[in-house]
């Protein structure tokens, strides 16, 4: 059952070049880490898909990078403003893993703090473009950080159940090293609930809707 409601903004804080948008939770469920929400982007035709970054009591917190018109509109929200939020949507990470290792690249670290909380604080490796971007690592205390030209794949110990989110090339590299990894992908998405067929990704040679099949997929299923 789809759940959509209006939520008040509590704060909209800079984290390096990113923003942490904190909204009142209301009756929304935080869902499983890796699931996502469609956030109304004020003045835009479509909402924007965002995974949940943190779920403190009474809050839903989203980390995003203002890169386009929708995310810039979200970055302009102020405490007291309201926005509509639909979700949680899609399939999150499986949490029944023995030796979890979290891997994030850039804004792809967004779902990892909430995931870390659910898994009891497993080791984490994060990669960023610059030291400024790496300030976001503060949201995941204790994580190991690689800054370009360093790569997260150079820091990954063997023998772990990898749960990763990041840019496509990072996910492909991580998937090649850990075929059992759970990878959270992204795609341009109009609706988030299977209606538009916009978020098609090539899985095993056929186009599937990422919002329905994913966004978290086993590495072995991704071509």
């Amino acid at each position, binding site marked *: 059952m789809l759940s*959509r409601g209006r939520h008040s903004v509590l704060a909209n804080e800079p984290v390096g070049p990113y923003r942490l948008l904190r909204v009142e939770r209301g009756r929304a469920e935080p869902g499983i880490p890796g699931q996502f929400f469609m956030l109304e982007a004020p003045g835009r035709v479509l909402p924007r898909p965002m995974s949940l970054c943190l779920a403190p009591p009474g809050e839903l917190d989203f980390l995003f990078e203002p890169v386009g018109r929708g995310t810039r509109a979200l970055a302009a929200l102020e405490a007291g403003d309201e926005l509509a939020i639909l979700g949680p949507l899609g399939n999150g990470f499986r949490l029944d893993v023995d030796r979890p290792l979290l891997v994030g690249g850039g804004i792809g670290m967004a779902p990892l703090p909430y995931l870390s909380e659910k898994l009891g604080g497993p080791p984490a490796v994060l990669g960023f473009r610059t030291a400024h971007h790496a300030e976001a690592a503060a949201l995941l205390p204790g994580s190991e950080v690689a800054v370009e030209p360093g790569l997260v794949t150079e820091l990954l110990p063997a023998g772990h159940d990898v749960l990763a989110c990041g840019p496509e090339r990072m996910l492909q590299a991580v998937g090649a090293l850990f075929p059992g990894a759970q990878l959270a992908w992204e795609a341009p998405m*109009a609706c988030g609930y299977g209606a*538009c067929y916009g978020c098609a990704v090539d899985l095993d040679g056929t186009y599937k809707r990422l919002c329905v099949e994913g966004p978290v997929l086993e590495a072995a299923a991704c071509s």
Partner: protein
Amino acid sequence: MLLNASGCLDALAAPEVARAFDAFVTKTVTPLPREGNEPTRIAETDHGLLNSIGLQNPGRERFLAVVLPQLRGLGVPIWVSVGGFSADEYAETCSRLSDVTIELNLSCPNVDEAPEAAAEIVAACRAETPFPLYAKLSPSLPNMADAARAAQAAGADGLSLVNTIRGLALDEQTLRPRLARGAGGYSGPALKPIALAAVYACYRATGLPIVGMGGVSTGRDALELIAAGASAVAVGTALFGDPGVPNRVRADLYKAAAALGFEDPLAARGIAHAPDPPLVLSKVTTNKTPAYMAK
């Protein structure tokens, strides 16, 4: 009557949304399965949405054997959107459908079109089915009224107006097309005046039942399409931003109609074609001498 626009809702993924409509319109069914177009498939613009999905669907056989029986379980009347690449293909699919309304997708901007004119396809389908047949026309036809009259003469029971219109969006940084296929079908708020003009012209030309669609996101939008001549209204792009839109549009439509003195929204059907209401002189309250007369 409120429907979803074809391709804008998966009733099996979101059954409660489909049930909020008076009928569910399927994504277009083609004879063979289609993978759809390469991503990127969607791009938002300032006033609408470009899509290039490319009629991704499981094909006629799987649709008839698996999908349609499941859809019938929803308890909502089903409209099947039928596509093809020749008149024969459309007609064969029509011959195999029963107890549905058929909407012929004669106007997808994202795939190659059948060589025949819309009216020829309608005539071929009419020969194969006794069920209600709606022709969905493109708003880019040079003369909508002529196309509507031709569809009517070929046996269409109604019209669906309008499909998306071809558009292009360029990337902010690279100035290259944002969709992998270049151009796509444009929908959303920007399409509303185009849809209104098409409904207005085709109502006047044919008097057929018309499903009006294009940029509907409020009850007022729906009322305007009805005033232009629509007998039913469909919601498309607005569903993407809010799956609660059917109930909201329906409630707002009744309010918007009542506020203008229409007990039922359909009482406003075609009112846009009526002569202007007489000027109500009592509303002229000024008694100042206009500046140009004072000189």
